[in-house]
């Protein structure tokens, strides 16, 4: 220690301390700031490729520079594609990895599509470019997606019932919104996409930023949804998770048919 103390007035000490401070600050910043996690690995090439892909595939709605596309139609300002400034990489990943974008056909809302039109690499580069347009939510850290390891399903369930169940239904089966819009089913949705949906508020879904639902909250919600779906339907046919509606249909169609069928057999004259 003496050796170190003796050298504290060394001209290089200042520089070293500064360096250290910078590294620590940077490290802390990297650790705590809402950092674009993937951005660390982003290269200029990727951003350029992303921009090219964007301009080829997305610009017709979102504008050449992602500034959005609004036009006056019959005296009313209509948006044909929202501005992506500040949308962040998470939004791009969510929309493109679930196939919602590029929009297959105009409708009340973009739908999940099973066939993804872009390679993961292409999506990543578009996301990287969009992330440069303005500060926005980045992809979540793996830590917050580890629902199996550290998620608290019970706590997540309480949050889920307060914040999510009114639209997505307590079973996560989805539900109707106004004028043909709907909250989609959560069955089989990747944890990262559940996370990104909460973070970015796609379509008409409200935004649940990290101060509303902390990353822990989001992880717990994911844990709840996943564990609930893992329990599945111990009682047999799940009937789509639509509760009394599906049960009524089943009772009237199937239950009544077999009962009446049996009654007909019983009432028939023996041969």
């Amino acid at each position, binding site marked *: 220690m003496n050796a170190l103390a003796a050298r504290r007035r060394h001209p290089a000490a200042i520089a070293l301390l500064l360096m250290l401070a910078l590294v620590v600050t940077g490290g802390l910043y990297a650790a705590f700031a809402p950092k674009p996690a993937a951005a660390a690995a982003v290269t200029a090439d990727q951003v350029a490729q992303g921009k090219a892909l964007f301009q080829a595939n997305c610009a017709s709605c979102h504008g050449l520079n992602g500034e959005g596309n609004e036009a006056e139609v019959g005296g009313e300002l209509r948006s044909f594609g929202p501005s992506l400034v500040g949308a962040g990489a998470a939004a791009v990943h969510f929309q493109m990895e679930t196939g919602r974008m590029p929009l297959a056909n105009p409708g009340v809302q973009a739908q999940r599509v099973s066939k993804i039109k872009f390679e993961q690499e292409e999506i990543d580069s578009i996301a990287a470019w969009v992330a440069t347009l303005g500060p926005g939510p980045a992809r979540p850290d793996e830590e917050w997606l580890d629902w199996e390891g550290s998620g608290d399903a019970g706590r997540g369930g309480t949050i889920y019932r307060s914040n999510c169940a009114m639209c997505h239904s307590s*079973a996560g089966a989805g539900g109707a919104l106004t004028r043909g819009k709907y909250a989609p089913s959560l069955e089989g949705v990747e944890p990262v996409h559940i996370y990104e949906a909460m973070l970015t508020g796609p379509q008409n879904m409200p935004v649940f930023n990290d101060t509303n639902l902390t990353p822990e909250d989001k992880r717990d919600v994911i844990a709840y949804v996943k564990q609930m779906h893992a329990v599945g339907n*111990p*009682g047999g*046919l799940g009937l789509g998770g639509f509760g009394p509606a599906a049960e009524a249909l089943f009772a009237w169609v199937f239950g009544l048919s077999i009962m009446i069928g*049996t009654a007909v057999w019983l009432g028939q004259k023996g041969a």
Partner: protein
Amino acid sequence: MSETTASRPAAALRADDKPIERAPQGAVGKLGGVAGWVDDRTRAAKGVNYLLRKVFPDHWSFMLGEIAMYSLIVCLLTGAFLTFWFVPSMGQTVYDGSYIPLQGVVMSEAYASTLDISFDIKGGLLIRQIHHWAALMFIVSLSVHMMRVFFTGAFRKPRELNWVIGTVLALLAIVEGFAGYSLPDDLLSGTGLRAMQGFILTVPVIGSYIAYALFGGDFPGEMIIPRLYAAHVLLIPAILVGLFIVHVTMVAVNKHTQYPGPGKTNDNVVGYRVMPVYAAKAGGFFFLVFGLTALIAAFAQINAIWVHGPYDPSAVTAGAQPDWYMWFSDGALRLLPGWIEFTVFGFTFSPNIAIGSIILLPLVYTVLGAYPFVERWITGDDREHHLLDRPRNAPTRTGVGMAAITGYTVLALACVNDIIAIKLGMSINDLTRFFRVAVFLLPILVFWITKRICLGLQRHDRELVLHGRETGTVIRTPEGRFFERHEDLDPYTRWRLVSFDTYRPIELEPATDANGLVRKGARKDRLRAALSRFYFTDQIHPVTPAELAAAHHDGHGHEALEGAAEEEYPEQIGADR
């Protein structure tokens, strides 16, 4: 009692029938000891003999009521099982059972014990599912049974009383169902109770008092689950079972109705005796209904209360529906516009809620219960009716019934508008608007269509009787014309088609008497005559022997084939009008 049919003692009609064997006197056989011992003390033999020898007609549609009865029994059996584990308490506890996603969550003991029944008690889930499926099937089959009774006119004298009892049973059944649905205290059923509190609050003057009395204070309080539990396992079942025993006893006292057919008259019952055939069939049917319900419960999950989580008034789930028998009421609530709420002298009237809930629910069942008396008033028919109507032979009643079912169904579907919207990719707003119109228009349309179908079927029946059955044999006459040979119906088949009664519309008496004074009750009579016309003007009468003879004489034993023949004899039907 009038003779509605030319009846002969039907039992005497067949020479080859075996005489009904009476048990040899005094030969009680092996059971003699016990049966004798009981009879020594009860004098029961005569009454039991009467019951054992009772005749029940056999038809699948007569089993609908039995499905309901057996489903009720299944509910009682499985319900008793559930009471051993269910804790009817709103006391809060922390869940520590084996359903992982709710571990550590604060919930009521009612909900926690329902989770235990579902996950930790062997066979508990099965019994719970049988209980709930049987409850749904109880009300489904009860409803279809009511439809059968309605469309066949089985509610007519002397069975009006039993119809009223049945209506009360139906209403009690849905109240019982709603109480049971609310017991687990999950998010879905709690939301139902929340809505119920809203309904009650709209009762003028005393609404808030009733609500506070029912919930024992603020919503949700700590009382509603224990109180509903008492109602669900004790009060309502006691009334339900009592009334249902009266209902079944009345069936035995009135003797079962039967469909019209050869040998079946208004003065007899043709069927099988209780011992042995009916006992075996009805007894076996109980096991069939129970067994089928058990199989359904093995294969199909019902009311997965665990996904909903415990009730919390700040949370709600999309797709919030009650069980189906409450849909028509909840659907009406969704269709009613909000602007009809108003305030007078500082008091709030909420017909936008009251009409769909506290008015509609009793109203529907009152109208149902009153129908026999209305029809009896319109027809003025005071005879006993033990022979059923074929629905087509009462076209207006059938139409009215179908219209009512349509209205009910539209309201019920309105209750699942959000599920329909999401399943069919439609707008919930458009659906609601459609249902708002459909609930008024569709019943009228369905009435008209049903009546046309009935009249068409009746005409077809007449034609069949008058012209016989198409044999498929084409005959060429010496002149080169082609005919299909028609074969007369056999008398048994024909009887089924011609043995029904028709009514003449009531003639309106002059509204003023000889002195020009307005007669008392003239307005009522006018309404009655108008309804009578509505019911009976365009009815079709059964073929009479004279008409058949005329048809034979006029050569309707066959029908011209090919266009040429038709052109040659245009309008052969109705030509002499």
